[in-house]
């Protein structure tokens, strides 16, 4: 029993231990920022490696906590993203007074996500979700001197509380309608009674808030703009990724019998999300806002993938999130570096960027191409499989709309590439030196962007994991 406990919860335990180590170090020693960052990065690397050792399926605490190889993989993807974010923010954190607090908050949210992904019960899910979102508000406020940062935190906490309220209401209705909160029992109890559908709609709205699906996306752009870049990238990739993992799993397990109902809802939501995300992204001038709207559009494409048949939906979503971790973090990495050194965050600042910073330009360009879905980057494969998964349902209207929207998204990504390579600028961003950690993060991201797609083995591996469920 005890060994089971250690093996099945190994990732959560490792994170908890790291949190405690950091706390003790903060209290007991007087480490410099730099050595603290070095140590934490080492621990995060250790955490990532530990994630790959020995994965088993099983449940704990009477079905509250469950794990299987797919869930372990999902957690590993998040751990990888955490490591990359940490490497990228090293430069910014070095000059910050509260490094240890930042890492502790970061790891608390990660822990919350892990519990959320492993949840086998709506209560557990809710607790994990809260653990992952409340520290996030504190993180959004981490540019302590900036007003916008506080504003972002405030907006985030309010909208997140609202989403949690909806979720709780939905959960309570689910309990009222079925008398249970356990996923395995719920999947048998849900039959499509009106009350259950109402409860489902509330849950869906809660999820939609967290992954910023239109019309629940209004908080996204402001929070992204105000929060420090490290937090923004964390929010847009890791936080959304974790909720997506749960979302696609819950839809296909607990609410499997309502498939026809949620298919239509997702159809409408995905079309709206892609369209609104795309149209707003065209108009943005702040790079972080731009990435916010482009990430909304990406979520729309993911929803198209989710509408597919269960195994393909789960596979393509997990695969896409992995791709998205690399591509979006590569883009954020460059933006973070530029913003940390020069404080410039406008798209127009990037005019003539290639003349002064060819390497960073290529990294950013590759990242944008991957987000746009241009081969041979991984983004092409990710988008292709999402849309192919969606097409499996035979609803070609949705696929045509999504495919045509690819053109719009292409336009705004190319607009930035055009600024980088073709536009003249009298005051280009000066030549930046790339410190070791961000450089390492960029290498990981670019390698990931190139390898993830071409290595077909990965997709099949993920599919094999979903098939075993």
């Amino acid at each position, binding site marked *: 029993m005890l060994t089971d406990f250690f093996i099945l919860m190994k990732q959560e335990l490792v994170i908890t231990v790291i949190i405690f180590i950091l706390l003790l170090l903060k209290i007991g020693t007087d480490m410099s920022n730099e050595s603290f960052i070095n140590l934490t990065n080492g621990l995060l690397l250790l955490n990532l490696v530990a994630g790959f050792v020995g994965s088993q399926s099983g449940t704990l605490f009477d079905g509250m906590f469950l794990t299987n190889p797919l869930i372990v993989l999902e957690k590993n993807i998040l751990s990888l993203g955490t490591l990359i974010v940490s490497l990228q923010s090293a430069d910014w954190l070095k000059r910050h007074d509260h490094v240890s607090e930042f890492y502790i908050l970061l790891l608390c949210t990660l822990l919350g996500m892990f519990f959320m992904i492993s949840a086998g019960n709506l209560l557990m899910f809710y607790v994990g979700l809260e653990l992952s979102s409340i520290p996030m508000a504190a993180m959004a406020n981490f540019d302590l001197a900036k007003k916008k940062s506080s504003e972002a935190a405030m907006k985030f906490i309010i909208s997140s509380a609202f989403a949690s309220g909806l979720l709780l209401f939905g959960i309570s209705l689910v309990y009222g309608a079925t008398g249970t909160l356990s996923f395995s029992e719920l999947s048998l109890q849900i039959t499509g009674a009106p009350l259950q559908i109402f409860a489902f709609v509330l849950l869906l709205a809660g999820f939609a808030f967290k992954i910023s699906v239109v019309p629940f996306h209004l908080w996204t752009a402001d929070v992204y703009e105000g929060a420090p870049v490290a937090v923004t990238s964390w929010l847009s990739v890791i936080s959304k990724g974790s909720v997506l993992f749960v979302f696609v799993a819950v839809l296909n397990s607990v609410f499997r019998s309502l498939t026809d109902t949620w298919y239509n809802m997702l159809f409408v939501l995905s079309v709206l999300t892609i369209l609104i995300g795309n149209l707003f992204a065209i108009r943005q001038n702040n790079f972080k806002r731009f990435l916010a709207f482009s990430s909304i559009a990406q979520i729309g494409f993911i929803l198209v993938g989710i509408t597919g048949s269960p195994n393909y939906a789960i596979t393509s979503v997990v695969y896409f999130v992995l791709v998205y971790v690399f591509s979006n973090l590569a883009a954020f990495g460059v933006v973070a570096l530029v913003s940390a050194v020069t404080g410039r965050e406008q798209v127009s600042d990037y005019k003539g960027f290639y003349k002064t910073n060819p390497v960073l330009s290529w990294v950013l360009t590759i990242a944008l191409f991957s987000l746009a879905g241009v081969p041979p980057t991984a983004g092409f494969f990710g988008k292709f*499989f999402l*849309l192919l998964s969606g097409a499996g349902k035979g609803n070609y209207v949705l696929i045509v709309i999504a495919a045509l929207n690819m053109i719009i998204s*292409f336009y705004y990504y190319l607009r930035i*590439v055009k600024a980088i390579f073709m536009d003249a600028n009298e005051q280009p961003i000066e030549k930046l030196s790339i410190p070791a950690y961000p450089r390492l993060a960029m290498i990981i991201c670019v390698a990931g962007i190139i390898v993830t797609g071409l290595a*077909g083995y990965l*997709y*099949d591996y993920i599919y094999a994991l979903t098939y075993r469920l």
Partner: protein
Amino acid sequence: MSLSILILLPLITAIALLLCKGLKPVRLVALSGAVVQLIGVLILFFYYWQQRAAGNTDAMLFVEDHVWFAQLNIHYHIGVDGISIAMILLTAFVTVAGILVSWSMEKLNKEFFFLLVLLSLGAYGFFISLDLFTLFFFLEVAVIPKFLLIGIWGSGKKEYSAMKLALMLMGGSALVFVGLAGVYYNTQTVDGAHTFDLIQLAQLHIPEAVQKLFFPFAFIGFGIFTALFPFHTWVPDGHSSAPTAASMFLAGISMKLGGYGCLRVAQIMPDAAQYYSWIIILLATIAIIYGAFATMMQTDLKYINAYSSVSHCGFVLLGIGMLTKTAMMGAVMQMVSHGLMTALFFAAIGMLYNRTHTRQVAQLGGLLKVMPFITTVFVIAGLCSLGLPGLSGFAAEVTVLMGAWEKADAWYRLATILACASIVVTAVYILRAMGKVIMGPLQVEGGATITLTDADWNEKAAAAILIIGIVAIGMAPFWLTVLINH
């Protein structure tokens, strides 16, 4: 010999380019890569010829098949038939010529040659793909280099043209994607799996309703790449804004991706091709005539060639739309012929422009006296374009028209006659432009102080390579017809 070398070689060249510094090593690496590739393609051609002569009747030769995404039944599946060989030959010739023409490219030379090589890689991969997924993959690989080539090294309203081209071609691929997905999900192989495999799809009978629904997506998608009317508008802007080598690649190789794609689509969905044949013919005929008349009104040499490309690519679609064996063969010949001819034309225009700094017909005159070589090249390209017997244009267009005449229906006859008549218009604009530019008193407006020199060795070599191809097809078209027909 492994066919993957065709993809690996440009890849190695591209990586080697990234490690080089300075114009001289860069262009040397690029050229040697392209020449080795050309030699490889010629060897492949002879091997292929031998195999066929020895009585090998497989649909595709030198097939390689590796599973890529097992769960989705996506394969890295490559192989060649005569049509692919013809297109690969074209690509190899144009690539070498394009690199030679850009010999003295100073601005960001490493990136320039890198993108050219990447573009050729996309084309090679596309022409040898036997799996629709890899086909689609390489189709898109070839789009982005064009955007950057035009946007960075182009002239005139280059950003606009680059964006227009990229978005329209992406629109084309989006439509192609829908077509592919539809075909994929609505067909099943013997063992019940979905497939992207071209050979299997051609053998399976795709249900007629499915064909009718998805043929337009795939065909129009590929059609956009080959200037299908009314989606041809990216062609004039893109071609005229692009730097010389990019124009050559664009018109010579990249537009052929679309034609080749349309051909394959018509092969896997024959019923729908039959059903929609009259629309294809209608659009192709409009493109031929409209393109020809639009060319008459142009004053810029690049625009003249770009619009005439719309007209000439109309012949490709006409040949495909007629669906007779001869016409289809003519379509392939026209693709090869037009690829070589238009690359030569753009090369000549580029050479003229480098020296005179103008492309306006009205501002040029009497250049034959000072630049005999370049103007001769220009004339050869022009004569090929208007279909002079002995050059490739004649052989190709005659084959298309003969194939078209096999369709006895009045509608097809009318289209054939109209297309045939457009050649007169072609003659008008070609002869008029040529007469003005090369004959008469010497005149270069706005550049009178420039000393005009004739072609350098690299330009001569580029032109010679393309002219060899044009004459080889024009004088002895039988080798190409035999190649395609096998």
